[in-house]
């Protein structure tokens, strides 16, 4: 991918990221932080890619460690956010 394409994607994503959360009530700060936290768990994808092309035991060991940590981050993050939000339902 060209450097310009990457910089374009990065820049647009920065603005989208700013915009989507610019007006959020403090009530939702905790679930929002937790949800954003779960999203960066997609580093799991990266961990799987490096595990795939690991050639030495050291590489594979570290990659497996990364997969475990990333899975905890992603799966745990979404489950815990859902638990928090479940309590908000029907309280309008």
């Amino acid at each position, binding site marked *: *991918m060209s450097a310009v394409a990457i910089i374009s994607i990065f820049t647009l994503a920065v603005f989208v990221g700013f915009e989507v959360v610019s007006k959020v009530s403090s009530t939702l700060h905790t679930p929002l932080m937790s949800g954003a936290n779960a999203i960066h768990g997609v580093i799991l994808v990266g961990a799987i890619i490096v595990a795939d092309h690991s050639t030495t035991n050291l590489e594979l060991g570290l990659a497996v460690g990364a997969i475990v940590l990333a899975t905890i981050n992603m799966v*745990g993050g979404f489950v815990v956010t859902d638990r928090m939000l479940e309590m908000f339902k029907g309280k309008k």
Partner: protein
Amino acid sequence: MSRTIYDLIGLFAGVCFILALKGLSHPKTARRGNKIGALGATIATLVVFFYANEGSSLPLNNLGWILGAIAVGALVGVPAARKVQMTQMPQLVALFNGVGGGAAALVAIVEYLHLGDTATTAEVVFTVFTVIVGCVSFSGSIITFMKLQELMTTRPVVFPGGRFVIAGTLVAVLGVAVWVVTALGTTPLLVLAGLSLLFGVLFVLPVGGADVPIVISLLNAFTGLTVAASGYVLDSVLLIIAGTLVGASGTILTRLMAEAMGRSLFGTLFGAFTAKPQDTSGVAEDRPVRSGSPDDVAILLNYARRVVIVPGFGLAVAQAQHTVRELADLMISKGIDVAYGIHPVAGRMPGHMNVLLAEANVPYDQLLEMDEVNPTFGQTDVAIVIGANDVVNPAAQNTPGCPIYGMPILEVSNAANVIFLKRSMRPGFAGIENELLYDPKTMLLFGDAKASLTKVVGALKAL
């Protein structure tokens, strides 16, 4: 699967994440938003198994290891997320963030080892960035976890010359980073990881308990950026989009939180460089306070027209959310006007108290935010402060130089009477004495919040 389809599916997952963040910003759509995010993450993970990267073939190498590691991660993560008490939520978020940062750092190290001499300078620079920030996020999150879990002191940890040690460590990190980029080798990279871990610890230690949520949010944004950098090295559009989104939204969220708490972001973050050891002696612990019995409290409440309940973290620790609702319902049945005054950072994290009270089925419309409730304290007969301290401490308004100075507070001192339910005279999470406790119109009811409230409910029923 062709590269085009693979990338388009990645784009789809990226859109899911945007919709997730958008949904999470509104109470009505929050839960759906989170589900959309989970869907995006699941799709993104599944699709990796069906695309062969350059020089690789399907099925993926080390497939057994990969699936086994995912199973282990899920077996650790899901029960932790299911079983955690709502009161311990901030710790868990800190911990999840930390392991994410750790994962990003490990991915960068493996990729660096793998690429060896073939890495381009840009790839090395991004790798170095990910290792530094991922390690800082990891060790910093572990320290915030320990602070919140009270495995260590919640006060700022400051030692003489600390700022020079921190600045020195930062310089060393940057120096080694240059070394890695120029020299290329495994040893420099591991030294860099070690120093970054140390810097993360030193960076978070001087942060006071009340500022910890801001740090968690910031480290969350950091981890997002490391994921974006990994996306560059691994040539994954999805990781770039997802990481950047979290980095940007996390930065805004950090700023919003700091604003809600009346903290300067700069002051919080660079407290490490400016903090001085505090004089914690000399507090007048032996001054007289007016303590009352549950009956005294019940009588005061019985003749009140308007009561505002100010819940704090102590309420949640005592698991007294249901008892406080019982008390509120009883007062409402007696025709008393009851509201809850919720400080933005009541609990340990912004919005934490709303979650805790929602768990006890307290009606949403009785929860008043700080700006709504503050003007009404003048017409309030009794303010009951349950297990809260820092969020009602007038020192935030009238003692320049104290750690919470400038934080907006609930002005309970404007109410005709103030009742504090406390376990002891121990100061709050921020470790600051509260003058309001010695005010003549303040009555203290000592004891476990749940036990005290149960007695008050009993006494009020008998009246």
